[in-house]
């Protein structure tokens, strides 16, 4: 989403909000496989962190490019899923609690039709959890406070604005919808001198409840769902800039024109990572 790249003097913050409620025990189709949503969320989150971690390493030195927070929410409230006393952990500190890599095996149908089992070796930075209710509102408020503090910190004033990924199954809207939309708006308007924060919602759908009409990266004009939670999530997602919408159209081979909302269903979040241009400098 940036026109400039991440550098040591122009860092950014990444917040990943992970739904850890009981409903995440349901199954979803992930990469053509039936797996528990909590495991899909775990895999996605671990992959993002691993990718960021790898990108920050230069010749054995981990450069301070990112502050990362992972906020879980479940019946017990909200909590940091990373060790330490603070929510934000500088990327170079991840070296201290680097877990032993874990192999995830996925069935993979290649474009030539072959079906193979592909092992992916990723460090399991967080573990899957699914218990209790879904205090999404509290998680959003915590995120808002967190990024407001981060953006207000003088040393971050020239940094790129935070990016927030909310990984959820969407079954978490017991609260007043307007309160949720309000706090999401507060997040989306929190800014550094380089722009506003980006809130991107990733929805893991339950098997059997997929709505085929939901477009990937919808626009306000073409999105309509009878599901209340989908409509709320749409309004809780950032509107992506024309530049980024153009990139999204190319990468995801979309037929409809932007500007798109930062809302995606069952998609590979790694693609999103590319889109937000983390670690790139197209100029």
């Amino acid at each position, binding site marked *: 989403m940036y026109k400039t790249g991440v*550098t040591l*003097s122009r860092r950014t913050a990444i917040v990943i909000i992970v739904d850890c409620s009981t409903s995440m025990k349901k199954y979803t189709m992930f990469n053509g496989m039936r797996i528990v949503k909590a495991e899909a969320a775990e895999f996605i989150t671990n992959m993002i962190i691993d990718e960021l971690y790898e*990108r920050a390493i230069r*010749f054995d*030195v981990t450069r301070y490019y990112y502050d990362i927070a992972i906020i879980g929410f479940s019946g017990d409230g909200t909590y940091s899923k990373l060790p330490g006393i603070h929510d934000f952990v500088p990327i170079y500190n991840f070296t201290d609690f680097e877990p032993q890599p874990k192999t995830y095996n996925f069935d993979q149908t290649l474009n030539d039709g072959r079906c193979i089992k*592909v092992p992916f070796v990723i460090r399991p930075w967080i573990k899957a959890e699914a218990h209790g209710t879904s205090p999404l509102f509290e998680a959003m408020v915590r995120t808002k406070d967190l990024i407001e503090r981060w953006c207000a910190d003088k040393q971050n004033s020239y940094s790129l604005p935070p990016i927030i990924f909310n990984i959820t199954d969407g079954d978490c809207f017991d609260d007043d919808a307007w309160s949720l939309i309000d706090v999401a708006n507060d997040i989306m308007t929190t800014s550094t001198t380089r722009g506003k924060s980006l809130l991107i919602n990733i929805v893991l759908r339950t098997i059997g409840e997929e709505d085929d009409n939901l477009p990937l990266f919808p626009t306000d004009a073409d999105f309509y769902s009878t599901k209340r939670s989908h409509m709320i999530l749409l309004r809780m997602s950032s509107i992506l800039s024309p530049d980024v919408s153009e990139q999204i159209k190319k990468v995801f081979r979309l037929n409809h024109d932007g500007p798109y909302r930062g809302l995606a269903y069952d998609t*590979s979040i790694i693609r999103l990572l590319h889109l937000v241009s983390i*670690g790139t400098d*197209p100029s």
Partner: protein
Amino acid sequence: MDLTTICQFKSGIRQPKLLFKTLCDMVPEFDSMHTTKHFCECRITLNGGDYLIYAPINYESMSMVHRAIESLNVTNCDITDIRILEAELLGCIASPYDTSIVIETLPEGTPLSEALYTLTEEHLLKGLNRLRQQLMSFDISINNLTPENIIIGYDFEWYVTRSYMITQGYGRDDASFSRIERLIEKCSLQSDEFSQRRVHMDRLELHRTTVEKDRTIYPLQDGCRRFVTRNGVGFLDDNNNVIIEPVFKRASNFREDRSVVTTNTGHMGVIDRRGHFIVPPIYEHAEFNVDSGNIAVSNGNMWAVYDYLGEFVKDWHERKQYIPIRSHATPLDYSADDDV
């Protein structure tokens, strides 16, 4: 759009037979993998030849390579051999589409960054001048010219690697040439010294990565060769005698008799070539600035600075602003403020 993730590329490197279309028989050097702004790269051996392969991790990467190849074709320049293998890395979970991979022939020889210490100034300046003439005659600029990216072949020809930034039009490498000239003047041997020390080309063997049964030995730097075993990282002298046992989880190459090490407990410190700790391994983070000789250490948000001899020069202070210092970077490592 050609774009992949480091995760996907690593998976491919681990199982080339499954995920690479034509490079399936390659033998990768895992330890050579590293990331720059545009690519994740790995050195491989294939059918007896050495290559560097690059996976694009930035959506500008491939257009840059296309531009470089076009420039080389237009000018008939043979200073490098770089190609694009279309849809080479098969799509999988980490990145759903097939991705093109860039492959570059790695000439046999030694990088200039290491030859600087073994060849004479006269020889090196002559070679550098010849390279400059070549670029001028082909009317191209490398845009990425560093001592690490120049290979001096065993035939004494000079080749360029990581040539994906080449553009048409000569002249954009002037600053790099000047920098390399200064390095040559500073580091290289004088002719009499050269003959006195009987430095022969076979010494260049010391400047290659050697993979043995139970250890990988890295090129000589600052009089030491880093080696990696299952137990950890240690150091050899230039006769391959162990001078520091492989007891560290990580260790940087020696520069100015200092190496930043990470112990098995995950703490960082700095050692000298005798293996003595100059800065004790009790810190979450340590960085050595080869220019000032200072060593910055941190625990949490608190920073302190040691001098080259291990004396405190700046006591603990809270970090107000992160001031990057040049660490034990290699010449390939771009400026400290380089983009990710």
